[in-house]
């Protein structure tokens, strides 16, 4: 880990030192650039907890327990002045593992989905709805690469988690479409690991009602809700990580219009 940080620091310093020597590339040089395969990302966020999700003693009062502890989050909305919805005894950890972002072609997916229909009372309806892409006057909002006010020719941002390595073919395939290894249907990957503890929730009123110590001075320690995302195996054996495991397969295509 230390070597990685030093390497990263050297990279950063080298970027700064050569900044004055950079020259813009011309079109010919730019067109020679290849290897645009998207990016992969790991993300980890811990709130008042360690890597395993165990609460930290953030304020010397104990591990996110007891009145006045600092493991809180307050939310307020317009017009409700000095009214705060307080989430207390709040701790958790979330990890997104191997999240891929790349460019994609909507036309490929449109072709795959072209034969699908919704059947209602014995009548089949195509899935396409051009009204999704029209304004209130019925004018099409799509530009370029579209037919019939449908986005089939547009580019999109393709998002998915790294799939598993098992393909489903032959007799187990459906409608002539094999489930390729890139779909990841045959395996379980912990794409998202998520542990969340919201120990208490209540509403507090006051100019400083968001302050963690408010409940001590005002005796507002009650709660109307406790919420938790976890796994039974941790309940049985605390040595297991408390995170819930979630597997996402397939992909989400995002595009604007």
């Amino acid at each position, binding site marked *: 880990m230390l070597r990685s*940080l030093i390497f990263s620091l050297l990279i950063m310093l080298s970027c700064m030192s050569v900044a004055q020597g950079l020259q813009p590339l011309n079109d010919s040089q730019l067109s020679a650039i290849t290897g645009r395969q998207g990016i992969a990302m790991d993300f*980890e966020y811990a709130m008042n907890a360690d890597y395993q999700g165990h609460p930290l003693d953030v304020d010397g009062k104990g591990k996110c327990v007891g009145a006045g502890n600092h493991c809180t989050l307050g939310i307020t909305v317009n017009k409700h002045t000095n009214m705060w919805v307080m989430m207390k005894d709040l701790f958790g950890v979330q990890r997104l593992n191997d999240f891929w972002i790349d460019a994609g072609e909507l036309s490929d997916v*449109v072709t*795959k*989905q072209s034969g699908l229909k919704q059947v209602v009372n014995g009548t089949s309806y195509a899935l396409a*709805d051009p009204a999704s892409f029209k304004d209130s006057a019925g004018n099409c909002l799509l530009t370029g690469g579209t037919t019939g006010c449908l986005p089939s020719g547009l580019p999109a941002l393709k998002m998915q988690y790294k799939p598993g390595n098992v393909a489903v073919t032959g007799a*187990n395939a459906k409608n002539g479409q094999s489930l390729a290894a890139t779909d990841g249907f045959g395996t*379980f990957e912990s794409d998202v690991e998520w542990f969340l503890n919201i*120990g208490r929730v209540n509403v507090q009123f006051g100019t400083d009602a968001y302050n963690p110590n408010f409940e001590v001075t005002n005796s507002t320690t009650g709660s109307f809700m406790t919420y938790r995302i976890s796994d039974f195996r941790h309940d049985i054996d605390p040595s297991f990580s408390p995170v819930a*495991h979630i597997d996402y397969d397939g992909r989400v295509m995002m595009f604007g219009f």
Partner: protein
Amino acid sequence: MGRKQAISTLRYWQTGAIGTRTGAFVLSMLVVASIAVFTVPAVALTPLNDAQMSSVNGKGLAFAFDDFRFQMAPTSYFNQVGGNVTASTSFNRGDLYWVGTTISSGAADGAGGLYDFSDYAYVNNQPIAPSGSGHAGQVMLSPLSYPIGKGGTQGYAAVNNPFVLRVRTYDAVGLKDGNRSDWVANVPNTMIELLGPTHSTNFRWAFWGQVDTFNKTTGSYPYVSNNDRGTMIGPAFQNQDIIIGSPTSCFHPDCSMPAGDGTANGRIDTSNPIAGPVFRMYQSMASDGTNDQTLGMIYQHRLSGDWRFSVNQKDKRTVNPDGSIKRGVVPAFSSEEGMYFMDVNTYLPLGTMHYQSLTLDGKPDGNFSLDLTRLPNDPDAYNDFYSAADSSGYKRAGRVDRYYETHGYVRWGNNFPTCSGPNCLSGTGVSNVRFALASDPDGPTLVVNSSNFPAATGCQVGGVTGGAGSGVCDSWDGKTVGNVVVASSKKAVLGAGGMIFVAKNGQSWQLPNNPGSATTTGAPHMLWVERGGDSSNGYTYQLTRDARYNKVDYNPKVDVTAINLGSSRVEGMTIQHLKIETLGAAN
């Protein structure tokens, strides 16, 4: 979380809390990459002018799914923890778990495989997906027999019908600045809205649930040990929910009626009757000061498909010898038993633009409320809300589309009585499919003909022979016999739609054939038909009838394995005002 805490957490990560060297390296490079971008002089960037900016047509963002699938590990859960118990209440604490939530293929065979929650294994604390096609290919009562499909949701949020996130201004009955008490038409209000797909193929949504009840608790999370929950009352209640459907439904309760045009959301195509869900957020309008100009929301809920709720398990794997539940063991639910709601179609509008909104509020005692604001007592508002009359008065038929936007409905099943009156809700007729039986006491219901009573079978129905009342079979040609008790198959019972209860595999319970009459006892009253004669003189039916068959009180108890309780519908649902308040914070 204070700033000091954020820094100390980061330090902890840097000293080794990140799991793998690869992960640490990637994270570091991402940080470096973002820093490097800002350190390089941006000499090549040029600003867009107004003409270029105006060509950016950012009317909305669309999110389409391609074979999307969501699967939680079968022991991973969302948990609603019950409140602490005090001496002033007779309630006990109850903890609710939604476990192993999954969204997968709605195809009958799961597009490659069908599985139970209990088919997943764990190796080194990592869930392992079952191999092969699981239960796909097995004889099963319905696609609702198993909760998990191997494939993804092929047609949910298709590219040509995706989720759409957009900002739009709508003109509707509302309040204007300067007069917050007079509702008038054509008031603009801008809102951000998330529109669900209007058309979708069915997908499978399932989870298993658990309810734990305790007689006391010593505190909220984090527990030092499970004993902190108090003593558990009885065994945990474990159940399974499977839905095959989509969050769409017909615009009209009667799916054969098409939608109109010019509707407020502008998203219903005139050529088809199906609509999708909508969620909106905006600045609310209300006559009372509390709910005016705060966060307002509208949610139009839609759902169609089939739902099965079951509790029966194949074995006792989750049960300890003392009857308590083994926590963390995934139950194995049986494939047929349960309460079924088939051919469901629902629409529930929570809020109407712009005079009825979902708003949030708090109470001085710390509790929280969700308010669907009161329908204003103003003709512009309530005439728009009801939309059930015109200049000639109240209309029972031929209503405008606005009526169907503001009025919800719930239907399960489609078999409603026919009617001929001008103002009745029409139907295609009540189904005669009632139940499936372990055995039919008066024999199968059949028409007497050579096909149903061929010579080879001896033209025999039932098992009682002899007795008075013999007659020539020909006189019974074309008549129906064995029709006092009419049994259907389990598949037919489910196929008829509506509300159905199915017993666990191989089990049954008893009901009178006619619940409106007393049951009769003794041997069954059989009609016995025998086919005699030969081909030279034409086959004849020799009919022997048991004398007791003439009795009108023939009403045996039957062994029922599945029963259809019929179809049900509620239409024209409106909510004039709804307020939900929590109580726990004041305890």
